[in-house]
């Protein structure tokens, strides 16, 4: 999920400045959704599919008879114009988060990659006849925080506010304007387009960003997931105001929306807000179904020259749907292979035993259609081939033989025991609510996740991995200096 610039990131950046936080961490592969360290160690695992990765983590009853925390109670209803609302009451802190979610992610870009991202970014750049300065002052003078972002599957428009009546009412009023009456001024589009083009250029400096784009292109080929959410130089240059307004009118509509609300407002207040913010949305229509992802028919290797000292390696395939029948075997199985932070096989083999890389990981990123399975590392170019062999051999042997009984037990203990930390903040609860709502997971998803994890067997993992990951059809992307360049490079 390409998170454009969420309010959380912005918020935390300012705090980090205040406390002079510039740190170096031991292990970049944070799998936990603690908001702060995740940002401190911007690691590719958490940046590539930021919003989604944190939701693949799960919840189970504690195994040692310790306190069992009930899952947050998700209440669900529909507004008068048919928008589904998902609401959790958290009375402790006088704040509220609300997100309006549209089926308007970059997989809806069509022939113009970057369209969803640009549309989302322009919402607050002029609305209801007010210019960008007035709109942003309208939130910030209240201490409210506005954000908009577009991922592969969906786009969100979000507001965080104090629950003080005067502040919240004024913030909602401004939010409605942005949501329902964006003006998309021509000048703002020109400016944003120019900024996006610079952003696309900046990605070329980053071997990890280059690798990610190449990986998605190779894995998804003609599927919309193949395109970077930011778009390309050509596509972004071609996007005009008419494209933006058409995209908005088609997808930012009531029948294509849902709302998630988490905070210290009671049910009747939440109902009122939900009615209020959806009232002015056009009814429109639900977005059309998209094509499913095709399996790869052969292995595909990509090498891209880059002046970096390290070579970045990504290996993978189309992997996991959000509502996949094999979700739990693949999730628990991957936890053992490369998802379990500092105790996974890849971490042990690549880093602990050989010192080859700062991070070595694998994960499934569940999406509406088969989201990618990705394993990766980065290492100095001279030893890239050696590191690739270690990575590949470990993936292949795991597909063949699966985990040991001891590994499975340890993984279940970790996943189930970490249940209380999954939902220990409004921000985390909101994240789960949006995923449950958007992907139509059962409302008791959090309550039953534990049992589902505990039910996974070694045989299920072996079967699911060998069916899903075909070693002779893997995509391998390497970005770094070529052998010739290495010889020329001064030390």
């Amino acid at each position: 999920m390409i998170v454009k610039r969420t309010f959380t990131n912005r918020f935390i950046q300012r705090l980090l400045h205040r406390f002079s936080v510039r740190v170096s961490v031991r292990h970049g592969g944070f799998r936990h959704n603690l908001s702060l360290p995740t940002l401190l160690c911007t690691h590719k695992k958490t940046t590539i599919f930021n919003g989604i990765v944190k939701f693949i983590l799960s919840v189970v009853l504690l195994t040692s008879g310790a306190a069992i925390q009930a899952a947050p109670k998700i209440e669900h209803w529909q507004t008068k114009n048919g928008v589904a609302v998902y609401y959790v009451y958290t009375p402790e802190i006088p704040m509220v988060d609300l997100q309006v979610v549209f089926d308007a992610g970059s997989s809806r870009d069509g022939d113009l990659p970057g369209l969803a991202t640009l549309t989302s970014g322009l919402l607050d750049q002029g609305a209801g006849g007010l210019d960008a300065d007035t709109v942003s002052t309208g939130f910030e003078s209240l201490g409210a925080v506005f954000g908009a972002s577009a991922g592969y599957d969906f786009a969100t428009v979000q507001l965080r506010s104090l629950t003080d009546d005067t502040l919240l009412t004024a913030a909602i009023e401004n939010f409605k304007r942005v949501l329902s009456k964006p003006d998309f001024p021509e000048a703002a589009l020109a400016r944003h387009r120019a900024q996006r083009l610079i952003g696309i250029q900046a990605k070329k400096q980053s071997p990890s960003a280059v690798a990610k784009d190449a990986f998605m292109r190779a894995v998804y080929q003609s599927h919309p997931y193949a395109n970077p959410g930011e778009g390309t130089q050509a596509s972004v240059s071609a996007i005009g105001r008419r494209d933006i307004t058409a995209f908005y009118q088609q997808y930012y509509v009531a029948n294509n929306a849902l709302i998630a609300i988490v905070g210290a407002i009671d049910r009747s207040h939440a109902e009122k807000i939900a009615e209020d913010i959806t009232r002015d949305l056009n009814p429109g229509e639900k977005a059309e179904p998209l094509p499913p992802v095709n399996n790869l028919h052969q292995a595909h290797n990509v090498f891209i020259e880059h002046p970096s000292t390290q070579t970045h390696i990504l290996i993978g395939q189309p992997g996991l749907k959000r509502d996949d029948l094999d979700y739990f075997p693949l999730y628990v199985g991957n936890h053992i292979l490369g998802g379990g932070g500092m105790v996974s096989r890849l971490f042990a083999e690549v880093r602990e035993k050989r010192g080859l890389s700062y991070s070595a990981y694998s994960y499934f990123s569940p999406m509406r259609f088969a989201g990618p399975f990705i394993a990766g590392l980065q290492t100095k170019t001279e030893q890239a081939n050696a590191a690739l062999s270690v990575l590949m051999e470990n993936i292949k042997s795991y597909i063949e033989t699966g985990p040991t009984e001891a590994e499975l037990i340890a993984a279940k203990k970790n996943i189930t025991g970490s249940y209380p930390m999954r939902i220990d903040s409004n921000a985390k609860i909101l994240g789960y609510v949006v995923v449950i709502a958007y992907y139509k997971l059962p409302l008791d998803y959090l309550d039953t996740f534990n049992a589902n994890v505990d039910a996974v067997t070694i045989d299920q993992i072996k079967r699911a991995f060998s069916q899903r990951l075909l070693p002779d059809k893997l995509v391998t992307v390497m970005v770094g200096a070529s052998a010739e360049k290495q010889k020329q490079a001064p030390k």
Partner: protein
Amino acid sequence: MKYSYRPLKIVLLSLVLITPVFADATVTEFRLENGLKLLVKEDHRAPIVVTQVWYKVGGSYEHDGITGLSHVLEHMMFKGTEKFPDGAFSRIIAENGGSDNAFTGPDYTAYFQTLEKSRLAISFELEADRMRFLSLPETAFAKEIEVVKEERRWRTDDRPQSYLYEVAMATAFQTSPYRFPVIGWMQDLDNMTVADLSVWYKKWYAPNNATLVVAGDVKPEAVLTLAKKYFGPLPAGPAMTPKSLKEVAQKGTKRVTVKRPAELPYLMMAYKTPVVKPADGEAQNPLAWEPYALEVLAGILDGGSSARIASRLIRGAEVAAGASAGYRMISRLDNLFILSGTPAKGKTVAALETALRNELLDLQHNPVSAEELQRVKAQVISSDVYEKDSVFYQAMILGILETVGLSWHLADRYVDNVKAITAEQVMMVAKKYLVDDRLTVAVLDPQPMTSQTQRQQRGDPHDR
């Protein structure tokens, strides 16, 4: 402003030993006989507990030839003790459903675990053990130092803007140890030995040089009982104070250009500014308000999309594709106010620098509007509420404040101190600190990238 002077009280409370000395609404402070300070922050929203152990050591405690030592030691802290050999620490935490990690900054090295609340003793036992009994095996070091070099390549060498930042720090600071990168210079990593680490560990890792912060669904007295059980028996080390290494006065603008393969230029302008001092009462320090005025100034420039950088430079003049202002108000030694940015398409770094300087001129000569001041204060008040959503972050604030030599009580006064700032005071700090003689300008001059050629092959990826 209303301050009270804390250091004296802190001295007194070490005599009181284990009675809670401050009972703030939710923070309780204790000190064990061996000098370990314990802060307990109650947050009963969820049945979890965060443990953080903060050591007063980091990149700014180092000197030429040993840069990066604190951070490498942080990595080696996971390589085992006699009681819990290599790998045991993370395995035990994982089996208990927890997460653990660590981070190193210029002024601190911190270790943390997050667990279900009944398992607090597990993290205490493990942390207490490695506070004094680390093994530092040679074989593990040989691999781990390579991991850290890879981290340096990933974090700094292959990121043009991070590389520029490193050069900018080394240029701005002449005698202050903030000129050293936390990750260390590559040649110092090449030269590092286990013996260096052993000396560093023995010198800094002791209960009297640490703060234990526990936050979550816990009761202070119960936490204290556990802390006494596990950390209490540890012997104190010698009292350690780092040498006073202050920055000499800068006498004119410094400029540095860095050439790296890159797509885009980048500009950093760093001004030497004061930080919050331990003596923050008006009687002891009449300039105690200054950091808060600089904090407000940073908010005026970059406190959101309605702030001046976004509204005047990114929109408005459209001279910046992106830009930011950040002020470091909490650190052990005086630090920087940093402006940075990427020019918009067709604009030069020089044009961006001029535009940023003009914003500073404006702040020096015209009072900020009442609306802007109100907006910054509203944001500070609301952020203070939003921060409470993260237990980890709340613990982190307490740990940082204590570890840089301030008091955790400062967290409670932050909002009031910011609210007290006037437009006049913002103008005064702009005139006093954001001036050429305190400035370092660092520019990334992008060099051609290797032309990106893409080869696609079928078959063995090893054929390159």
